[in-house]
């Protein structure tokens, strides 16, 4: 049973980026439809809130000598993030995010999200504002300077949903997109499955915007052993990337490798607790097992980097594990951190769980996951877009995932989402009516729903575990087996074995008892396609030269990769 619909702009993914894209597209006067695999009110990385938003304020930051160029340079090279991912930032996109961040904040405020307060605290940036005007609570969380807003963002998705409804944007919840539809190399819509009814949908669209999120959950082994216990939404499983690859889109790939800096983001075991260890400003500090303070303000990125020697020293002296410790903080500082946690997606529930477990920041120190230098990292893949958020395929735009435009954080999603909506709507206004390829639709229906007919196939969990096994092997081959920080030459034989096994896995029959399981099967099928391109890319010889940065184009037989030099507009200050 197939259902048909048509629209001007089809946005796939209704998180922060997708909602912003849809709202701005609708404001250009075109018809907009959102496909959301979860439910739009609580979906995406900000589904249960966001409490930190980096921005550049033309009224404030110039007075402190902090320019947009400084910010881009800091994110690219000199700040905490820049140091970790040195030189991987697309500075043009990053500059667009920085320049658009103030407008984004003002828009969110106008939709009922509170950013300004009567009271600001001694640990917030102290700045002059006209008499009686409320102020932003600015902290130095993300970059080297004070440019991150703490705010009441718990219901940000509810407010965005209201704006979508107000504009008559069609929202399909529980609708998992499975395929981009193409005709003569142009993207003309998408197909998908309703996760609850199992109905197969065909959407005809003048233009498609991918906003499926910046991660490939479940591609690699989960550190805790539980796929659904992690920072990014477990529903962000590379669907957009896989659909785009199958349609012929160019992508950006960050290879697996080894970290060059020690980092701490999570409570031990609870990998979904990201934010709890980095949003603790000003109350929390990192201590070693002897109670010695290693980092006084872990939320402040620049000092975190400078204090890494303390971390490494404690590791070498055996003074582990490490703890997040609030016990010396004042009541006011703890109250601020708890307010902040209460608005941060993955933290509010931890405060509630702490009540049930009888835990209290005033008395208890919390063990942190130890992530020493040289830890193997996972790989990552995203769409390659130009500054209009347009991909190489006519009719396809993307705002998330795209090549690194800044930290993978709310401002990137909000600003790039907003921009992609406008650009896509303008494309829709000048383009012709799309035509669908009926044969392609029949093939996609067969491909995506076949697990329902297979009684003798493998479950999605079996296939996913096998995928994790292959990717674990790939990760070790690409990163080398030697001492931390040293990148060996990869074993081409080893990588080829991974490719063979991926190809066998792709041809394995999957089975699903119901539409929910069918969507999980499709997620695994998508992850296998993403994995295949990522692993193939690693044996391109160019890969060795510049560590991790290259783009590739999916070819049905053999992908051809072209290394794109990173344009540096704002070189590192420290390198001078």
């Amino acid at each position: 049973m197939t259902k048909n619909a048509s629209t001007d702009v089809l946005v796939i993914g209704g998180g922060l980026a997708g909602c912003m894209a849809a709202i701005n597209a609708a404001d250009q006067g075109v018809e907009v439809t959102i496909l959301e695999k979860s439910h739009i009110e609580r979906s995406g990385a900000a589904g249960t809130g966001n409490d930190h938003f980096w921005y550049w304020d033309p009224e404030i930051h110039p007075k402190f000598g902090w320019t947009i160029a400084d910010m881009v340079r800091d994110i690219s090279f000199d700040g905490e993030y820049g140091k970790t991912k040195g030189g991987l930032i697309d500075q043009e996109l990053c500059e667009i995010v920085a320049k658009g961040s103030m407008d984004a904040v003002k828009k969110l405020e106008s939709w009922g999200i509170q950013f300004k307060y009567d009271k600001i605290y001694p640990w917030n940036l102290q700045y002059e504002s006209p008499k009686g005007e409320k102020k932003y609570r600015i902290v130095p969380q993300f970059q080297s300077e004070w440019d991150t807003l703490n705010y009441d963002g718990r219901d940000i998705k509810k407010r965005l949903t209201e704006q979508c409804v107000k504009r008559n944007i069609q929202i399909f919840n529980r609708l998992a997109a499975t395929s981009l539809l193409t005709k003569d190399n142009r993207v003309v819509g998408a197909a998908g499955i309703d996760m609850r009814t199992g109905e197969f949908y065909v959407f005809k669209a003048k233009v498609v915007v991918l906003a499926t999120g910046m991660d490939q959950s479940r591609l690699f082994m989960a550190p805790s052993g539980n796929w659904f216990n992690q920072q990014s939404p477990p529903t962000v499983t590379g669907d957009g990337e896989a659909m785009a690859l199958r349609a012929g889109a160019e992508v950006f790939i960050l290879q697996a490798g080894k970290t060059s800096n020690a980092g701490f983001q999570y409570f031990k075991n609870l990998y979904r607790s990201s934010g709890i260890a980095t949003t603790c400003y000003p109350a929390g500090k990192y201590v070693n097992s002897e109670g010695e303070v290693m980092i006084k303000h872990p939320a402040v990125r620049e000092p975190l980097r400078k204090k890494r020697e303390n971390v490494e020293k404690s590791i070498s002296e055996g003074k582990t594990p490490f703890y997040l410790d609030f016990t010396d903080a004042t009541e006011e500082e703890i109250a601020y951190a708890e307010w902040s946690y209460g608005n941060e997606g993955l933290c509010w529930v931890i405060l509630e769980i702490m009540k049930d477990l009888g835990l209290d920041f005033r008395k208890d120190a919390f063990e942190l996951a130890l992530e020493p230098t040289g830890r193997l990292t996972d790989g990552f893949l995203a769409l390659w877009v130009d500054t209009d958020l347009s991909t190489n395929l006519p009719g396809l735009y993307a705002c998330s995932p795209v090549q690194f435009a800044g930290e993978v954080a709310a401002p990137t999603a909000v600003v790039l989402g907003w921009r992609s909506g406008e650009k896509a709507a303008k494309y829709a206004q000048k383009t012709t009516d799309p035509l669908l390829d009926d044969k392609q639709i029949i093939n996609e229906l067969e491909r995506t729903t076949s697990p329902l007919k297979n009684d003798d196939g493998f479950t999605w969990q079996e296939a996913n575990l096998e995928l994790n096994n292959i990717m674990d092997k790939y990760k070790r081959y690409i990163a080398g087996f030697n001492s931390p920080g040293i990148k060996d030459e990869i074993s081409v034989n080893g990588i080829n074995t991974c490719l063979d096994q991926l190809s066998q896995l792709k041809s394995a029959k999957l089975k699903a008892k119901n539409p929910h399981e069918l969507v999980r099967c499709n997620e695994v099928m998508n992850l296998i396609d993403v994995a295949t391109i990522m692993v193939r890319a690693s044996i391109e010889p160019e890969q060795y030269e510049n560590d991790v940065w290259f783009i590739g184009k999916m070819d049905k037989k053999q992908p051809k990769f072209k290394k794109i030099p990173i344009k540096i507009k704002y070189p590192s200050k420290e390198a001078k």
Partner: protein
Amino acid sequence: MPPTFNDNCITCFKCVEICPTDILQKGEKKPVVAYPEECWHCGACMMDCPTKAIRINLPLWLRPLTKRVKK
């Protein structure tokens, strides 16, 4: 396994509607956790429950490990 529902539940099934990972289904007296192993422990259900009928229980092996510093 998470989440759990108490007798305050008025079977409005807002939690079933919004659960990000689609683990909940409508039951006769309460929602049913159909896919407990797919819970993200995000708390969206608890956040939107109008009668405070939901708690999230972390499995033992995901609970925070702590040490008491001050009595």
